[in-house]
């Protein structure tokens, strides 16, 4: 019973991605960075894609946006539908580039992601000029509006400045202003807060939520920080070694984790509780080498609950509960009933610490 998340009751998915596979040809061999990823995003909701470095989350969204250089990179399978229209591999639909107009994107490092020799205002004005044909004057004044919308003080003065005169947090706000300039229906945020201080992080996330509330745009948020996920996500997809290993609502993921990796991530989070003293519980080992992906589950080398089958066959996507999926053999009906199979202790399931 493999499945892709859909919510028949609410709106049909704004963005629907199925079985996306991307690989890279490098001088050391072929890296299979994304190995069959499916998810969907609805209007007005935030999907968080979580995973550690190298799991393929950035490659996934960047290939949707056509930002992966295609000579070393290659999309080997999959489809992506925006409002029902296939956009994978084609960014220009009916003569219009959907990037910037229907999908916006912000990136991890605002310092390097903006043109150092161009004024901020000009860079924000650019999508307006390109997609809506605004004159420079009109676009520039709209850019100033957008800057104030992004809570940047003295927007008119700031618009005439250059990126090196902004701080990291302000640059990220400017990038957000730039990405939403043409009111796209989806905003993809690739680790927007990773390079920022914690307090600035909170502000940026609040900004994103406010903008979402005002415009109803969907947000796809890439992060490796579970704290960020807890704060803003509606739906969560956990990625590991190029595949989505668990997806569900944010409550499902946190309180009813159904995959050993998600559990491992939760247990690895440092605690803020003054009453308790714990040792950190990292997950031993490192992700598999994607030059030669393992035949079975990518996580089994590090999984405390692994079974014989995990080594040899890739697990299928089991529906653990309504709209909650886990790619783990533990949820195979036979595993549930087999006495020799490991079982996950009840406490770990329910968010308590071991």
């Amino acid at each position: 019973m493999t499945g892709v998340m859909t919510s028949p009751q609410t709106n049909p998915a704004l963005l629907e991605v199925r079985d996306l596979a991307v690989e890279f040809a490098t001088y050391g061999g072929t890296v299979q960075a994304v190995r069959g990823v499916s998810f969907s995003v609805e209007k007005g909701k935030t999907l968080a894609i979580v995973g550690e470095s190298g799991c393929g989350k950035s490659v996934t969204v960047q290939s949707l946006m056509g930002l992966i250089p295609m000579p070393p990179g290659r999309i080997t399978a999959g489809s992506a539908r925006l409002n029902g229209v296939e956009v994978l591999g084609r960014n220009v639909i009916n003569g219009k580039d959907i990037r910037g107009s229907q999908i916006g994107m912000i990136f991890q490092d605002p310092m390097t992601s903006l043109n150092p020799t161009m004024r901020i205002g000009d860079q924000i004005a650019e999508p307006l000029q390109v997609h809506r044909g605004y004159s420079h004057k009109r676009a520039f004044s709209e850019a100033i509006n957008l800057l104030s919308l992004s809570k940047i003080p003295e927007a008119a003065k700031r618009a005439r400045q250059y990126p090196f005169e902004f701080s990291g947090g302000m640059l990220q706000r400017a990038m957000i202003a730039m990405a939403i300039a043409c009111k796209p229906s989806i905003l993809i945020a690739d680790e927007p807060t990773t390079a920022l201080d914690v307090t600035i992080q909170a502000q940026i996330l609040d900004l994103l939520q406010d903008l979402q509330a005002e415009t109803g745009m969907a947000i796809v948020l890439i992060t490796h920080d579970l704290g960020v996920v807890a704060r803003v996500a509606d739906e969560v997809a956990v990625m590991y070694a190029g595949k989505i290993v668990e997806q569900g609502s944010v409550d499902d993921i946190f309180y009813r984790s159904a995959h050993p990796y998600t559990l491992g991530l939760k247990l690895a989070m440092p605690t803020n509780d003054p009453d308790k003293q714990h040792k950190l519980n990292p997950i031993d080992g490192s992700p598999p080498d994607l030059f030669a992906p393992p035949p079975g589950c990518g996580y089994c080398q590090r999984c405390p609950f692994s079974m014989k089958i995990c080594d040899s066959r890739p697990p299928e996507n089991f529906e653990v509960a309504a709209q909650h999926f886990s790619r783990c053999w533990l949820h195979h009906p036979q595993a549930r009933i087999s006495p020799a199979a490991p079982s996950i202790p009840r406490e770990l399931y329910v968010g308590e610490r071991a």
Partner: protein
Amino acid sequence: MLWYIGKRLIQGLITVWFIATATFFAMHNVPGDPLLNERATTPTIRANLEAKYGLDQPVTTQYFIYLKNIVRGDFGISFAQENRQVNDIIREHFPVSAILGVLAVIIAAVGGILWGSLTALYRNRLPDYLIMFLVILGISVPSFVIAAISQLGIVTLNNLAGTTVLPVAGWGTIFHMLVPALVLGLSTMAYLTRLMRSSMLEIVNSDFVRTAKSKGVPPARIFARHQLRNAVLPVITVLGPSIAAITTGGFVVEIVFAIPGLGRFFVEAVQQLDYTVIMGTTVFYGTFLVFMVILVDVIYGFIDPRVRMS
């Protein structure tokens, strides 16, 4: 910005002083009496020269006389060509070299930026291979060989066409300037092409170009406003010293193409041991180069706002 320019100018003056001093002490170490070479000078002339240059006085005094003369713009009289002021020689022949040099620099810069961008945009395809092959020739074949071969080419061209399409040597019209300037600028153009290529390749893969793409900006606009502007910066940085290389490299081109430029006269002066001309030209060239570099730095400051502000 003004402060930046002012600071650079002062630095430039100090550098010029340094050059003049180094030149003086280098020449002063020449064994033998500069006046007592094969040229026969009458006692009165000799006495005048001695008085003027203070040749019978201690080194330090001579040095100060020398500096004083330079500040007044007086480089003295040529030993080899009597009655000819070094200043006149410079005044007459420097413009020729300057025009040649400027033309060569323009060709090198425009060509370098153009070819470099092309190779980066069409990386690993035919234009890339073709241009890089020519670049390799440009940096490995010595300039005098290229100069000689191009002269041969002109002769052949003229023979084939039956008339003088291009003058083989000499100076005067724009046609006289074309091939020499091209030859002079060639190795710098090759170097700039490589520089532009690697700069462009870096930019093409940079984060802000990725951002521009994610905004849906069309490729032509990305090239002009995002890539070119940033990729050209290292090329401009290098342009200053390149001008130096071109001006001094002009010797060969001037000799091969019989162009009456200062470089050629400098070489002749060297061959004839005409000390005043040698010294004067060295100081002059040095000063010129120092201020060219400053000029280029100032222009760079206009293009890259980060330099301006800091």
